[in-house]
């Protein structure tokens, strides 16, 4: 008997398109806020929405990984392709991990907010790790990142909440019933 794949083809394609949407939103939606990390609103919203629409462990990680490769190919991010790829990937993995630890209901506003906050802040792990790898004193690296971290937490949380609101609106509109038909 043929082994069933973990993600169906439809789910894989949908997650791939979500990854592309993450990159598109990051490029197209630039708000005049002058605050670092504000693009995380749609970024985290889409990651949370993807985890809600494909309710399997690893969905957010796959979105993170794929969008990381796409972003690296597009030359996004100032610190080079490696940092871009790792940042996007870690956001996905972090979101998956937190979602799993919190019980896996991305429609819950608190859960989604926490997923958004921690997932988005995971980006700092990459920056911190790469900064440490260069041999720069850890204190300098931390000092350089501390200003931005508040923005990342706030926008990550807002993104997570937006993701949950999106999922709720989709449920109200009968999107999940439509999806079940397609599956």
């Amino acid at each position, binding site marked *: 008997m043929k082994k069933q794949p973990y993600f169906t083809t439809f789910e894989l394609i949908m997650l791939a*398109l979500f990854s*592309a949407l993450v990159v598109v939103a990051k*490029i197209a939606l630039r708000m005049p806020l002058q605050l670092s990390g504000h693009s995380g609103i749609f970024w985290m919203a889409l990651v949370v929405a993807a985890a809600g629409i494909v309710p399997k462990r690893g969905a957010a990680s796959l979105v993170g990984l794929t969008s990381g490769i796409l972003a690296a190919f*597009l030359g996004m991010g100032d610190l080079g392709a*490696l940092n871009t790829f790792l940042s996007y990937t870690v956001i996905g993995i972090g979101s998956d991990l937190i979602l799993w630890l919190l019980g896996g209901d991305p429609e819950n506003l608190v859960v989604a907010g926490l997923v958004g906050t921690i997932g988005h802040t995971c980006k700092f792990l990459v920056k911190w790790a790469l900064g440490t790898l*260069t041999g720069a004193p850890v204190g300098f690296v931390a000092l350089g990142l501390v200003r931005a971290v508040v923005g990342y937490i706030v926008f990550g949380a807002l993104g997570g909440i937006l993701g949950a609101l999106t999922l709720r609106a989709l449920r109200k509109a009968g999107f999940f019933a439509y999806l079940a038909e397609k599956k």
Partner: protein
Amino acid sequence: MAKRKGPLLVNDSPLRKADPRTKLALCLGLSLTVMLPLEKLFVATVAYALLLLWARLFRSAVEQIWRIRFLLLGLFIVDWLVVSPYLAMVVTLRLIFLTNAFTLFFATTTPGELRLALEWLRLPYPYAFSLSLAFQSLDLLDSEWRAILEAQQSRGAWHKPGGGLRELIKQIGNLVAISVPAVVLTAKRAWGMTEAAYARGFDSPHRTSYHELTMGRLDWILLAGSLAGSVALLLWR
């Protein structure tokens, strides 16, 4: 796509002819260079700069460095003043290496070639396929995303918050007006693509690829050269 930064495909680079597996190995090797001490790191930097010049990627690399000039300068000055000039130089060179190591790969490889390399690395075909599909859908999704933004703005359902964070928080509910249609359109498109893929024999067990990866003379020269360089750097005292 509207605004892209950084290393897009450099078609006239001689590295375009190299196998993506070779380039991936080169980039991974280059990333490890950051662990070298200053003297060896300096030699590696010169060698890498020569490689970039030959590959016609020097400009891309310089542009990448230019983007982080303030960060580099700040780190250099602080490290110099607070710790030592030695550390300042090491940190600056390592950061330059880390930000540029993968320029070689991403500026000379197409997503299709990456897909083939991933398949060679035993990544299941559906995953590799979805990756290249995502890349090909970027322009399409970009225009759809912009259409949604314009439509919702013209209906007054959403406007770009210009008043700072407070206004953005107030508007968070309104942002659903953008995210919901985007998700629905994406799901519809995904379904259409799934049907099209199956209609073209996506799950056929006897799949063959039109393009296949082959290691040429250039690949072996590059691999042998980088291996010899690495050994020389490690043995050099």
